[in-house]
């Protein structure tokens, strides 16, 4: 089990350094025309924890998330992931290094079967090279391993019965599960989830939360974007709050909710919400 006390000595202030950061972002600025969408001086994610990135709508969470995963390029600043500089690195290279992401609008590959979706998530399949693809003996062994791994994950995510169905026939929640299971096919070290609970029914939310905690127990680091406080309190070890493109607070969920700046940031749209209680 992961050490849950590792963040105990860390100060509750934005941009604070962590004992063993896996992901570090420095001086990230992203402008769209005249609008500065993201302006984060420093941000670190502790290895093998669940970190939530929260903030009101339009706070720049998703933009920041895209910058961290290299799906967007910042005008200034850079990050490092597990020692690898991220400045102007193609997103697929970041993924190969062990950071996989999911999307706010679920990207199940609908024209393909659930199984093919899963197999696509695997790395180091020699048959993905054009010339080797002509010679099945070069890749059929790896394909067998990949298939077994996919079966395991599909059992775990309760999609095994659906394995031969086209991904387009799954429900919205099942697609979320498929996307997460597919991401795990690459045996990542860090999983980035963009609003994993958005549009998912309560029963499935429970199982998604369990799956996320399970990722941490298996040694992975999780960073997720969310705006439902309830979810955040349940599972996150650490919460980073963004507002107007900047990091305004960091700390454990309970502390962050009491923070004056956070309450002010949320007041604009949730003036009748009691942030300190589950509701």
């Amino acid at each position, binding site marked *: 089990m992961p050490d849950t006390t590792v963040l105990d000595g860390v100060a509750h202030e934005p941009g604070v350094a962590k004992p063993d950061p896996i992901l570090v972002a420095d001086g990230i600025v992203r402008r769209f025309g005249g609008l500065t969408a993201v302006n984060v001086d420093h941000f670190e994610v502790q290895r093998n924890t669940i970190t939530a990135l929260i903030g009101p709508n339009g706070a720049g969470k998703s933009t920041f998330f895209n910058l961290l995963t290299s799906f967007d390029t910042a005008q200034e600043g850079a990050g490092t992931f597990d020692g690898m500089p991220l400045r102007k690195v193609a997103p697929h290279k970041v993924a190969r290094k062990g950071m996989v992401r999911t999307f706010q609008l679920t990207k199940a*590959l609908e*024209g393909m079967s659930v199984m093919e979706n899963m197999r696509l998530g695997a790395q180091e399949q020699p048959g993905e090279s054009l010339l080797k693809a002509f010679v099945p003996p070069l890749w059929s062994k790896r394909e067998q391993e990949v298939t077994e791994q996919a079966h395991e994950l599909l059992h775990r995510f309760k999609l095994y019965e659906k394995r031969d169905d086209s991904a387009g026939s799954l429900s919205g929640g099942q697609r979320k599960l498929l996307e997460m299971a597919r991401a795990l096919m690459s045996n990542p070290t860090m999983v980035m989830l963009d609003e994993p609970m958005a549009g998912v029914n309560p029963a499935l939310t429970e199982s998604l939360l369990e799956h996320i905690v399970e990722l941490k127990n298996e040694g992975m680091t999780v960073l997720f974007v969310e705006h439902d406080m309830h979810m955040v309190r349940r599972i996150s070890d650490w919460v980073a709050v963004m507002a107007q493109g900047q990091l305004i607070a960091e700390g454990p969920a309970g502390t962050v909710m009491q923070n004056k700046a956070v309450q002010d940031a949320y007041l604009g749209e949730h003036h009748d919400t009691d942030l300190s209680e589950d509701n």
Partner: protein
Amino acid sequence: MDILINALEQMFTPATAAFAIAAIGLNFHFGLTGLLNMGQAGFMLLGMYGYAISVREGLPMWAALLVAMGAAILFGLLLGWPTLKLRGDYLAIVTIAASEIVRYVGRSNTLVDVTGGSLGIKGKDYKGPLEGLSPFADERITVGPFTYHGSASDSWWLRVVAWTLVALLLLAFWRLSNSPWGRVLKGIREDEDAVRSLGKNVYWYKMQALIIGGVIGALGGVIWAHGSAVVADAMGRPTTFWVWTILLLGGAATVLGPVVGSVVFWAALSLVRAVAKAFIPESILPSTAIEPFGLMLVGVALIVIVVFRPQGILGNKKELAFHA
């Protein structure tokens, strides 16, 4: 009866094979990868020029084939390099324009010594090497209701070569589309960002697909040239649209779709023309109007496919179809 035999003949002409080959190429682009290549005729024309000019200048046949394929590779690199990083529509715009540029450059008077200008390159300048390989007699041979020359031009030999090539390319398409490589391409067709997030170099895969499909298009051009001649204007926009019609008719992303599409397309076109000629009086449809009338019906047929069978004859609606 003659009408039916004529339609049957149309099913297996070298031109039908050439279009099937070009559609197999387009199947790599669109069927597997979702690339909107609107300039397949440009790839075909480059293949024709590459082969015909090389043979005329004295290169052996295999080298001429390499030149034809090399020209398609360069064209693919040139088109793909700036556009494959952008959204799909840009590739469509660039390919349609670039293939028209190839045609206009080919037919221009400035290059008349190289490409033969608008008159093109005559068959005798480049058909020799392939016809020289023919094992068939150098005379007209009749099999059943069909009579063709053994080796020259629109011959039995060319039919054998063309359909053998079709078979080999179908085999290659089947192997690749059912491999992990093909799986990556299908993923890109569905959603490139998802595939990127799984650690695949999407740009490079799209480039590979564009080049492979283009090279196959060039081979289709070489076959077409052996059945008729190298004329730039035969490879205009209509040719590209016919290749698209054939692929969508047969069923994109299926192995046999391009062949079924090409066979049905050319047989139907021949049938429509013959029936119109035989049964519609001259006073209503003059003979000069039969050609455009046939093509018009092809257009109507395409609309009917899109409405009633959006996945084509063989296609799988769940995998790839027109969406409203």
